[in-house]
Structures are given as C-alpha cells and as structure tokens.
C-alpha cells in the first residue's frame, strides 16, 4: 500500500515535470504589451462614451451606469459576431478584464451551449463565468456594508 502510494506520487511528479516541459511558455512581455494596449483602448472608448454622455447632460451617477450598459452591449454584440473572441486570443487580459469582457464571458458560453436548450443551455450556461463574479461581488459588497454599519461609524 505504502509502496504504491510512493510510486503514484513519483509518477505524479514526473508527469508534472513533463507537463511543465511540454506546455508552451507564455511570452510575458508580448502578452503584457497586448493586454496594455487593448485594455487601454477599451478604456479610452469608455472615456469617450462618458464624456459624450456628460455633454448630452446626464447626471454624474447616470453616466457611469449608462456607460457600463453601452459597453456591455458592445461587448455582447462583438462576441456575437465573432470579433471579440478573435481579439481575445491576442489581447488576453486586455479583453477579459474590461466590462466588455464580462459581457463576452456571458455570451460566449451561452452561444456554445445553445444546443442544450433554452433553459439548461443558454439560461444556465451564460452564468458559468458571470455567476462567480456576481456571487463574490454581491457578497463582498453586502459584507462591506455590514462592516461599515458596525464599525464604520
């Protein structure tokens, strides 16, 4: 029993080494540049939308929400027509981190699992990535509120 355990461990180590050897090494510098450029450009688009909405005369808080809604629409649409995922292959974090990437993380699996039906396919799978984000976002926000209530005053 002890022996097989050791053997298995040994095998696992060997396997891990093998995987490390074979898996392509990420090009840190190149990836970082791409992420910076694409992420930065998406934020410039966001800034442009914000400034435009301000000129139109929206309230300060409305501007933030409206900008998010527009960017989410764009992210979802570009994912639908297949442009966003092409961009994502190069941009990595630059396309994932902005709010457009959040929309992408909803549309992408939802389209993929369409064949499984409207409830368990689209309805359930669209939250495969967005679900955790909402769970942890909402939970931590409520906790922050509660903490503020008890010690913040």
């Amino acid at each position, binding site marked *: 029993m002890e022996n097989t355990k050791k053997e298995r461990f040994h095998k696992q180590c060997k396997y891990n080494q093998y995987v490390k050897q074979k898996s392509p090494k990420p090009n840190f510098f190149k990836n970082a540049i791409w992420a910076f450029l694409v992420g930065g450009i998406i934020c410039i688009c*966001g800034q442009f939308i914000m400034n435009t909405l301000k000129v139109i005369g929206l309230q300060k808080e409305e501007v933030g929400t409206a900008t998010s809604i527009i960017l989410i629409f764009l992210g979802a649409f570009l994912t639908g027509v297949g442009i966003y995922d092409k961009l994502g292959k190069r941009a990595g974090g630059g396309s994932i981190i902005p709010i457009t990437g959040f929309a992408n993380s*909803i549309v992408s699996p939802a389209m993929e699992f369409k064949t499984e039906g409207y409830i368990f396919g689209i309805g359930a799978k669209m939250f495969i990535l967005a679900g955790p984000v909402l769970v942890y976002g909402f939970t931590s926000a409520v906790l922050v509120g509660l903490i503020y209530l008890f010690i913040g005053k």
Partner: protein
Amino acid sequence: MDYIRAFIVGGTICVIGQLLMDGTKLTPAHVLVLFVTSGVILTALGIYEPIVKFGGAGATVPIVGFGYTLAKGSIKATKESGILGAFTGGVEAGAGGVAAAVVFGYLMALIFNPKSKK
C-alpha cells in the same frame, strides 16, 4: 488628457490581470472574481476612489470598477438606511450593468451562433 490617463490606468489594470494569468495558475475566471472582490475591498478601504478620480473610465471600465460601484452603493445606502441599505445598496448600484449583461447576453446568444467551427 483624461483619455491618456484612462489609457494608462486601464492598461495597467489589464496588465496586472495578464501577468497573474501568465505567471500563476489562475484562470480568467479566478482573475475576474479576484478583481471584483479587490475592487470592493479597495473601495471600502478608500484606496480606489482616488484611482477613479485620476483614471476616470480607466478605473471604472475594468471589472474592478464593477466592484467599486457595488461597494460605493453599499456604503452609501448603509449610511442612509442602515442594515437594509447594506443589502440593497450594492445590488441597486450595479443593477443597470447586471440587467444589461443578462438581457443583452441572452439576446445575443439567441441571435448569433458560435463562429469557432468555421
């Protein structure tokens, strides 16, 4: 000028995410969750507000900004209406984005089919 600041701040946040994905075993899902939670915590500590003031959309467009919106709404509503506000504030502040994400996400998934097979 605000465009340059948005570019730099937004780009930097995305690079941090990219380096986390390349340098560690974290998947995009991990990074997204980590960034939202960080946004909430940093806002609660008062660190993120100055970054938003400086970077504008560069700070609010990344998913960290979603955490910022949630935490800000939560704290504001808690100030106004106590314990009930702690529960309603964050979700209320993020409601527009979440509803848009759900509705547009659903509609786009209905209309379009995945392109990867071509």
